[in-house]
């Protein structure tokens, strides 16, 4: 069977498995962990679209995450809009910021580390702005009132949040699959591999990159919107801090960059490493995180192409 076919079957299977997961996870810690894992997987999926398929590494995906989160929160708190409208508005805002930041950087031909750093700088600018303007609540942050009701994107039990997040993640996964199978996807990969050659084959590099960053921004905003609704509190550091940007790129690299399931697998593996590190060090503060860092390096040492790369290699050996 060719790989394209396998993926078409694998996507519904994986989503079904994720939908069934709460049966095994119970309603407590593990379900909560699974929910945040999906949230970061969605963010990672967004990063992967731009970084993995398009080769444009961003160090500032917090920019989109934070924008999605702030837009819903502000609309809800200041204008009294409902969170579902906020979800759409946040996603659009994420895409718009992506387009804006992309238009500026790609228009001027920024590539590689230069692009990476400009995204980081944009995220910082937004962090400082969010600290300094009044309608975001400034440094004191913004608090979404607690009002449990599904119409209000606040679920009484954890499973509600889990399924809400699963739907958002499914969107990001299916968008990625669609991109992979489209002309746009082929162009995106070509731009990643060699811009000069891509241009000579009729590809408008600027437009392809712009499309990718817009889409990526919108998807990343999805996870930000979810964060806001799940935790109900935001401050500039939570939304635009560099920690979020690091999370966004860590998972795809561990999982397998430029692959469909890499971000999900990477996000799961990272949480798993974190848990292992906790257990082995008995939660000794600092030591557990240090061990997590060490495990990260060890994974890289033995899996240079990420976990999906390993699976691919094993698959080839069996074939």
């Amino acid at each position, binding site marked *: 069977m060719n790989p394209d076919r396998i993926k078409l079957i694998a996507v519904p299977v994986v989503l079904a498995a994720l939908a069934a997961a709460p049966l095994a996870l119970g309603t407590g810690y593990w379900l909560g962990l699974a929910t945040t894992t999906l949230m970061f997987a969605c963010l990672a999926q967004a990063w992967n679209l731009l970084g993995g398929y398009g080769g444009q590494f961003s160090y500032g995906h917090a920019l989109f995450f934070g924008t999605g989160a702030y837009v819903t929160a502000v609309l809800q708190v200041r204008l009294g809009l409902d969170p579902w409208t906020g979800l759409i508005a946040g996603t659009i805002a994420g895409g718009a910021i992506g387009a804006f930041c992309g238009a500026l950087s790609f228009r001027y031909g920024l590539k590689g580390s230069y692009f990476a750093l400009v995204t980081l700088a944009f995220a910082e600018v937004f962090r400082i702005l969010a600290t300094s303007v009044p309608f975001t609540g400034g440094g004191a942050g913004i608090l979404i009132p607690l009002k449990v009701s599904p119409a209000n994107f606040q679920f009484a039990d954890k499973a509600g949040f889990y399924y809400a997040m699963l739907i958002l993640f499914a969107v990001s996964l299916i968008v990625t699959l669609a991109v992979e199978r489209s002309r746009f996807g082929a162009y995106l*990969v*070509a731009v990643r591999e060699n811009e000069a050659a891509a241009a000579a*084959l009729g590809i408008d590099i600027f437009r392809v990159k712009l499309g990718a960053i817009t889409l990526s921004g919108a998807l990343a905003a999805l996870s930000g919107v979810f964060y806001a609704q799940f935790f109900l509190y935001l401050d500039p550091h939570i939304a635009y801090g560099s920690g979020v940007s690091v999370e966004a790129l860590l998972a795809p690299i561990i999982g397998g960059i430029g692959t469909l399931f890499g971000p999900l697998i990477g996000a799961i593996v990272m949480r798993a490493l974190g848990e292992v590190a906790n257990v082995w060090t008995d939660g000794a503060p600092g030591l557990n995180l240090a061990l997590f860092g060490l495990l990260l390096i060890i994974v890289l040492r033995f899996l240079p192409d990420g976990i999906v790369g390993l699976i691919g290699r094993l698959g080839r050996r069996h074939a």
Partner: protein
Amino acid sequence: MLEVANVSKRFGGLLAVDGASLKVAEGSIAGLIGPNGAGKTTLFSMIAGAVPPTAGEISFAGQRIDGLKSHEVCHRGIGRTFQITQPFAGLSVRENIAVGAHLHHRRRADALAAAAEVAKLVGMAGLLDRPAASLTVAGRKRLELARALATRPRLLLLDEVMAGLNPTEIGEIIGVIRGIRDSGVTVLLTEHVMQAVMSLCEHIHVLNQGRVIAAGAPSLLVTDPKVVEAYLGRAAAGRIEAGSRHAS
């Protein structure tokens, strides 16, 4: 079909192309030769829109194309290969060619099928699933050609696609290029392999230090002292003449 008029390109203090003019007739195979560093690749890059000319005009099929971007030039129907090959290294040969084929095929499956067709044309059918990164120099040159062909160009710019091939392989690729011309594509090529240039080209331009110093039929140029001195050298000129006398 293609008309280059008084085009110049300056890199800092260096005038790489200096008021060059040339014309390529529709349906022909034209050659551009000249010593290393004469500006041939630079001229190609300007035609293909990769580098903007400092001065001069370029028109294609009656329309100005200087000032257009690479991809716009490609959409007008000009394909090019790179002297220093530029494969999409992480992709397979099939996927490489499919990128070109997408210009006329929106659907992925169609593009992949078209890629297989083109590969057959350039003799890469057996290599379709090889990663481009593992191709040898010769393989990469063919891939360049295949990718450009897949965009179905009306004019094809070939920058030293034969360098690094042995005489037998050169013979094969000459056949391929003739086939391309016969299918209605105009070809402009630069090459240092005289055997190929002589047998393929109907009309040749000689570039030296950025200027066109001679133009005409191949047989005439071999005896042009300016060309011999700047480019061919006496020994090669002698060999070519001997060769053509031998053949006729």
